[in-house]
Every structure is written in structure tokens, then in C-alpha cells.
């Protein structure tokens, strides 16, 4: 059973087309990675899913058609979208950022427990819990963005280049955390990455976009052994 299904989606900005007939699926409790060069349409794909871009075709969450729903409705249905770069609330504290991530939930006691869990996952955030998010470093903000997305207890989490601009050690930590969350809570993930190595290591399935079209899809293992992918995205 697939949590998220994208079927024949085309989208663009104004009259400029970006995506052509793109299809992909994220299975229950699995991780899918979406690879592609700059401008291939990876971010647009995520934006279509979270309702920020108009599209033709079909996007289904647990079989339910999302077409025509606004981003806030889609988020409340269980799609968490960690946008690229800084999507944090810069003038709210770290703790308030995490709390507002749980906006769709009503289980007060569990929300408090989950905030603690985020601090366990990202100890740096605990040290800075009372600081405004705008004063965090890039790496800390990225952790906060992931933590906030997890607070939504999503059915599926969309992450746009979570490793962008981070030191290699921090990237390792981040991916380890993502894998742990995926295994322990069964949250499905669709991760967009340019640095493909780590993403492919933790992913079940992989897709490759080129200038708006899906050119390759399969299990993460198959895709990582593809010669073209190795040359273009894995640096060997």
C-alpha cells in the first residue's frame, strides 16, 4: 500500500512548464529519494504535493485525492513539508517552533513528550530551546526544520535538500536521525537531494528527474548501481 502517490503530474509557474507527466510513489513506512540536477523540478514536485503549486494529474494521500486543497488543509491531513533553507519561524523560540509544528494535534501530554524526544534526537536544540530560531546556525536551523516537521506526526514527510550547506559530520547525524525516526515511528519520507550518497543509503526507492521528466526509477540499490547515476550524482 502506498502512502503517497503522484500520478502523471504536470506543473509549472505561469506559462513556464516545469514538470511533465511525473509519477512516483512512496510506500508505507518507506523512504523514497528524488534525485536530479538543479532546475530538474524536484522542489516543484514537493510543492505540488503540499498544495503550493497548481498541477494537472493526480496526487493521492492514502488514496485520497488532494487536488484543490490548500497547503494548511493538506498539512492537517498529515503531510509535513520541510522546505529548503530556512523555513523556521525566526522570531519564535526553538521550543515554540516545535510546539507550533504540532498544531494539527490535540494530544497535549504526548506533544510535550515528543518535544522531549526531539531534544533527545537533536541535543543542540535542547541547549537553545529558549533562543529565537533566527539566531541559530544553518545546521541548527535545519535540525529544527526537521524536528518541527516530525512534530506534526505526519503520514509522510517531504524534505527538500536537508543536507544543504551542512558540515559532513552534521549531515551524518541528520541522516542517522531520519533513519531512526523512520524505523521507530514508521513515518514515510520523500527526500529530495543533490548529495545522493547518504540519501540512497537509507532509501528504499529512488527516482531521477531530468528537466522535468522522470528518467529512472527503481529500488535505491538498482538506481545507485546505474552507470549514469553514478557518474552524475555519486561522483564516481
Amino acid at each position, binding site marked *: 500500500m502506498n502512502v503517497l502517490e503522484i500520478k502523471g503530474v504536470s506543473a509549472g509557474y505561469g506559462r513556464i512548464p516545469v514538470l511533465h507527466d511525473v509519477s512516483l510513489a512512496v510506500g508505507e513506512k518507506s523512504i523514497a529519494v528524488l534525485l536530479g540536477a538543479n532546475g530538474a523540478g524536484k522542489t516543484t514536485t514537493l510543492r505540488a504535493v*503540499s498544495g*503550493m503549486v497548481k498541477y494537472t494529474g493526480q496526487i493521492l494521500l492514502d488514496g485520497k485525492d488532494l487536488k484543490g486543497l*490548500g*497547503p*494548511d*488543509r493538506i*498539512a*492537517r491531513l498529515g503531510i*509535513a*513539508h520541510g*522546505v529548503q533553507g530556512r*523555513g*523556521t*519561524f*525566526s*522570531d*519564535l523560540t526553538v521550543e*515554540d517552533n516545535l*510546539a*507550533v*509544528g504540532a*498544531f*494539527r494535534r490535540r494530544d497535549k501530554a504526548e506533544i510535550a513528550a515528543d518535544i522531549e524526544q526531539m531534544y533527545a534526537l537533536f541535543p543542540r536544540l535542547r541547549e537553545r530551546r529558549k533562543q*529565537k530560531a*533566527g*539566531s*541559530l*546556525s*544553518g545546521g541548527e536551523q535545519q535540525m529544527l526544520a526537521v524536528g*518541527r516537521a516530525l*512534530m*506534526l506526526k505526519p503520514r509522510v514527510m517531504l524534505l527538500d535538500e536537508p543536507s544543504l550547506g551542512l558540515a559532513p559530520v552534521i549531515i551524518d547525524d541528520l541522516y542517522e536521525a531520519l533513519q531512526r525516526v523512520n524505523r521507530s515511528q514508521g513515518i514515510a519520507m520523500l527526500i529530495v537531494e543533490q548529495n545522493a550518497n547518504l540519501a540512497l543509503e537509507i532509501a528504499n526507492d529512488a527516482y531521477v528527474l531530468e528537466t522535468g521528466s522522470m528518467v529512472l526509477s527503481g529500488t535505491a540499490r538498482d538506481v545507485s548501481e546505474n552507470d549514469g547515476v553514478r557518474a552524475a550524482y555519486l561522483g564516481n
Partner: protein
Amino acid sequence: MQYFFQQIVNGIGDGAIYASLGLALVLIYRTTNIANFAQGEMATFSAYIAWQMVDWGVPLWWSFLIAIVVSMIVGVLAYLLLVRSVQHRDELTIVIVTLGLFLAFNSFNGAIWGFLQLSLPSPFPEKSFAIGALRFNAELVGTIVILIAISTGMFLLLQHTRLGTALRASASNATSAMLVGVPFTAMMAIGWGLAAGLGAVSGLLVGPKLTLDPNMMGAIIIYAFAAAVVGGLTSYRGAVVGGAIVGISQALSMAYLPWLGSDLQILLPLMLIVAVLIIKPEGLFGSTVVVRV
């Protein structure tokens, strides 16, 4: 010396009124990034609603309550029907729209209730008492108590409730707020409704003090902006302190600089504000968010 302290006490009373309208300005600015020039005229409208209720024989406190609720609904509608469509345009467009709202409310109040002066009864008894040599009347004490109550209520709402966090999140980053499921339009409408409620309170405090006419809040909105600017338009504490600064300096200038006359007594408070803006352009309590790369 006693005369000096009495002036300060009186100044605080006026300052509390400027602060309550200033708080409304800050609330709208913080939730929707808009400086609402119509806030004063909306407050005048609230005072007229209360007057109308009293005129129809509704008990005073009920009249005030109804006026506040009606004002909040009108605030929500003003956002949904008018402000929403221009919210993401440039600042000048938004300024013109709120100035248009100013004229609309001003003319509406005049058209319905006329330009003759009406009198709105005071909710406070005509009593005063003395502490040492200082005299406090019930109105002054009541005004300060109400200001403390609404600022505390607003602080608790914004800092310690789920709705408050969502309101602050929407103001901070609209896209991210929607992506965690916060209904952005509803938050903005609630922000305008709450601000209109706060503005109504200040209108209801001013109404009995002055006489009720369509231009009642004309000077007060300027003092309220001055008060809010002391806090950089973003700080609730700043608006309260700013209100006190404006109120006290105004009272002192009336008492000690009588040659300025009633038309020029606005000079001292405004000079103080200009001084604040020159020395600390972000206001005494305003926050400039430092963003790290």
C-alpha cells in the same frame, strides 16, 4: 512637588488610553505587518455602538460588551473583505487602503450619528480618594486596571496558548505556518478581530472623557502611534511604556509650559518620540532580528 506628582498621576491615566490603542496597533502590526491608520476611527465606531445601545435602554456594561463584540466582528470583516486582497502588495498600497478605511469609518459614523456632540456615560463612579496628598479618581484607577488586565490577557493569549503560538507563527512566516497546518487567513482575521476589540476598549474609555463625535479619536490615534513607535511598533511592553511617556510628558507640558497653549502641547511628547527614533531607530523595545548565515 505635590503638584508635580499629581500631574504624573494624571498623565498616566491619559497614557493608559494611548497605550490601549497603541496595543491594538502593535497587535495588527505583529500579526499582519500592517500599520492600521483606521484603528482610531474604528474605535470611534465602537463608542457610537455603545452610545446607541445605551440610547436604546440597554444597561451600560451590556452596551459596552455588545460594542466590543460588534467591533471585533467588524474588524474580522474589514480584514476578510478588504485588507486580505491587498495584504501581499507593496506597503504604500496597504497604507492607502487603511487610510481609505479611516475615511470610510469616519464618514459612516458621521452619516449615521451626525456631527453633533453626544455624551457617552462613564462606567466608573464619580468618586475620588486620596493617598497622601495625591488624588485618584475612580476613572483613573479603572482605566489603569483595565489596561493592566488587557495587556496581561493579551500576553497570556499570545505566549501561552496554542492559538497565540499559531498567530505568532503566521506573522513570522506565512508559508511555513500553512505547511504545519495553521489556517493563515483565519489567523489574520482573528488578529484583526482582537485588535478591533482592543481598539473598542480604548474608544469606550475615551468616549466618556471627551465628547463623542466622529473626530473624537483624531488626536488620540496620533498619540497612540507615537506610543507604539516607542516600542518599534513590535513590542507590547513598548506600547505601554510609550503610552506612559506620551501621557506624562503631555500632562507636564500643560502644567509647566502653559505659554505653549493647548494647540502646541502635543509638541513635547512628539519631540520625545523623535528623539527616541533618532537615538534608537528600532524603538526602545523593538527587536531587530539578527539572522545568522
